[in-house]
């Protein structure tokens, strides 16, 4: 099978890929922190997170930090698996190009 065919469509956008990598590295990250890290607007980030949620790659949890509402995002088990497969496929594509 072609390596390009193994890429996961949900992570084919670089913002969603960056969200996946950040969440894999840190566990849980707040919406506000993701927005700052990625330099996106609320609407833009929300749309990408919704796509990840719809694909069951990301789960959200609402909480309060110092009496302020905070939305936390984390990769699901399926999200971890999909991201790993996607990264492996990217590696194959790059190896194939070299």
């Amino acid at each position, binding site marked *: 099978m072609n390596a390009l065919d193994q890429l996961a469509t949900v992570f084919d956008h670089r913002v969603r890929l960056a969200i996946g*990598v950040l969440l894999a590295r840190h566990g849980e990250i707040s*919406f*506000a922190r993701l927005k700052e890290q990625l330099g996106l607007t609320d609407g833009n980030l929300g749309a990408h997170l919704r796509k990840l949620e719809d694909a069951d790659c990301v789960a959200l949890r609402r909480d309060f930090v110092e009496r302020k509402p905070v939305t936390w995002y984390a990769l699901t088990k399926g999200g971890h698996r999909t991201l790993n497969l996607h990264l492996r496929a990217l590696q194959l*594509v790059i190896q194939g190009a070299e």
Partner: protein
Amino acid sequence: MVADESIRDDLNYVASTVRRQEYRSGVPAIYFLWAAIVLVGFSLPDFAPVAAGPYWFVTGIVGGLASWWLGERAGRKAGFNDKAMGRRYGWHWMIGGFGFLLAGLPVIVGQVGIVHGTSSFLLVGGVVYALAGVHLERPLLWSGLLMLAAYVVMVIFQPPYVWTITGVTIALSLAWAGWAATRGESRDPTDERA
């Protein structure tokens, strides 16, 4: 190959995004807490040697727990709930604490006297802090190297009040690290209204 170039661009974007969040300047409150603990604790062997052991036993545990609470709170406030990082910090300081206890073993079993044995605590402290600077938070490296330098001075020259002088120096370096971390703090990233 357009697809390859696009993938490379995407990966460069991801790499720069991940690098942007390296936030290891530390938690100012923890630095200030330990600056105060060290300032008092290091002067005790010079002025009230009997109180030094109980002081470090109590402040080691209470200070460790307070640091864990402050670190967890600062992480959540910064928008990260990083359990893996928390575990890494926990293991580092727990093994360091165990090393401190083991450093007292030769004194407890009577192999060396209390005067010669206490310098081992400085050696262990220096190694634990310097390694924390390498693996966790860079400002701790300087505190660790200061402790190691003080250990050398203590063993070779045995000058008076070296514990107090070392404590003041380490407390100043920790306070400086705390001040530097305060300056590095950005706006509150948990504020979703921002």
